[in-house]
């Protein structure tokens, strides 16, 4: 008789509340039900009641991990309606922020992943490295989380000392190359716990409409930074990472290589940082009638914003579709027949973000 084992909403392996009810037979998981909605704060509703300036702050709080990408995508959509051009320097800074965010998010994920297979030392190692990323973020934006860097038409703060940031980036690169990536790709216990686990076939990945590293680890060649380049990705030359072994190991590798690519992008952007203003002189408070969509590649995949303006300073409709919203259901396709002991890692391998999902 299968028994039910709830993972969550409060669970040591989860940063955020969502509920995974596992039906197990012995140690084998037969099925899983996913329940979300614990963190629903009605952000889309609130956004329609506030003006564009306040909305940028509000959407930053959709998710604390990928706050920047939400604000910048919203800004992109509004800029499209309003016909506001973003200065080159601001585009580069937005790219740097986006990649730093990806770096810290992937490192956070790697740390939690290590913790999920009980590798406490690895967690500590990664968090130690992540603090360096946090330092850069703090140096640029003044905040460790929720940076408030995006303003309509540009960014709020300039990067004043690219050299020191480059030096820090170099350190992170070394840390990644010497410690994190080798351990994640070569350590025997980690390979034993990741290889062949939680397979999501390409067909399933397409059926669930998965996005981001999860999809790319299942062989779907899709990265918004390449397909629909925004910010400065076109100038910097971007290479996406795709693997087709479909298991947790593939997701680990995809994220690891993406981190390396992020570092490269950051360094490239810092070296080629154009001079000029960081935002237009004049940004209108009211946006003309119209609607627009914007997409960008968040650490977890594609973020999609739809903004409809009615000519006032308040949007008529803001629709946010986040990557975890489509990724979380695909857990069901991965867990069947897996061991209970692998469940935390499998659910972590999609890097679920519930505050994104629930909004």
């Amino acid at each position: 008789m299968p028994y039910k084992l709830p993972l969550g909403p409060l669970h040591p392996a989860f940063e955020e509340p969502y509920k995974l009810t596992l039906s197990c037979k012995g140690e084998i998981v037969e099925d899983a039900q996913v329940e979300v909605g614990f963190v629903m704060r009605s952000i889309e509703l609130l956004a329609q009641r506030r003006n564009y300036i306040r909305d940028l702050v509000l959407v930053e709080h959709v998710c604390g991990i990928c706050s920047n990408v939400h604000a910048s995508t919203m800004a992109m959509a509004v800029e499209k309606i309003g016909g506001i051009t973003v200065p080159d320097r601001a585009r580069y800074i937005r790219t740097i922020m986006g990649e730093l965010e990806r770096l810290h998010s992937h490192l956070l994920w790697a740390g939690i992943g290590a913790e999920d297979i009980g590798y406490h030392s690895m967690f500590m190692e990664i968090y130690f490295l992540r603090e360096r990323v946090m330092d850069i973020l703090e140096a640029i934006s003044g905040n460790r989380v929720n940076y408030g860097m995006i303003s309509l038409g540009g960014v709020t703060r300039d990067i004043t000392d690219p050299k020191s940031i480059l030096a820090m980036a170099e350190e992170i690169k070394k840390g990644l190359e010497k410690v994190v990536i080798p351990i994640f790709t070569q350590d025997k216990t980690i390979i034993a716990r990741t290889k062949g686990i939680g397979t999501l076939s390409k067909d399933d990945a397409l059926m669930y409409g998965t996005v981001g590293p999860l999809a790319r680890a299942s062989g779907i060649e899709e990265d918004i930074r390449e397909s629909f380049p925004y910010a400065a990705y076109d100038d910097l030359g971007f290479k996406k990472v795709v693997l087709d072994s479909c298991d947790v190991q593939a997701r680990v590798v995809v994220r690891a290589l993406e981190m390396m690519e992020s570092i490269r992008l950051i360094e490239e952007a810092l070296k080629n940082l154009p001079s000029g203003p960081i935002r237009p002189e004049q940004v209108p408070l009211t946006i003309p009638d119209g609607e627009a969509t914007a997409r960008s590649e968040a650490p977890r995949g594609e973020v999609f914003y739809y903004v409809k303006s009615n000519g006032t300073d308040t949007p008529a409709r803001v629709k946010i579709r986040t990557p975890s919203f489509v990724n979380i259901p695909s857990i069901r396709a991965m867990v069947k027949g897996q061991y209970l002991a692998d469940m935390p890692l499998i659910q972590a391998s999609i890097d679920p973000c519930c505050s994104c999902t629930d909004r």
Partner: protein
Amino acid sequence: MSNIFSRLIQTSRRRSPWVYRINAGSCNGCDIEVAPCFSPRYDGEQIGAVLQGSPKHTDILLISGPITLRTQEMVKDVYQQIPSPKAVIALGSCPASGNVFHGSPTIVGSAEAVIPVDLYVPGCPPRPQAILEAIQKASVMLEKGETRSQREVSHE
């Protein structure tokens, strides 16, 4: 003799705060700042703080987020499951005021309305140093018997 023991227990309450974390609708900004508190740079274990997995083992409850309607009962239930004496720390601005979510129809907006809070840590999110300081303060409150759970018991 009993005095020595009660003194010992009081000291040990300060020395050994075990922490449990609830995300009650946070944007997870506060939560990702709790984890670094126990990582090498900040290392909460120096003051004896350990992150626990079960509320039954807990002394200090960290609560983040504006408390959504869906998590309200959960928070109450978990608070009851924590054996006294216990302290509650509200992390960030959300449990205090609702922060940017103020006015949302799906949040309670104040932790106080659900469970008695002992300490507020302002910030969006608060920094790890602030969180650790709050833990330390809460453990001192536990030692002195100043938490609301302890005071309410003594009133009864």
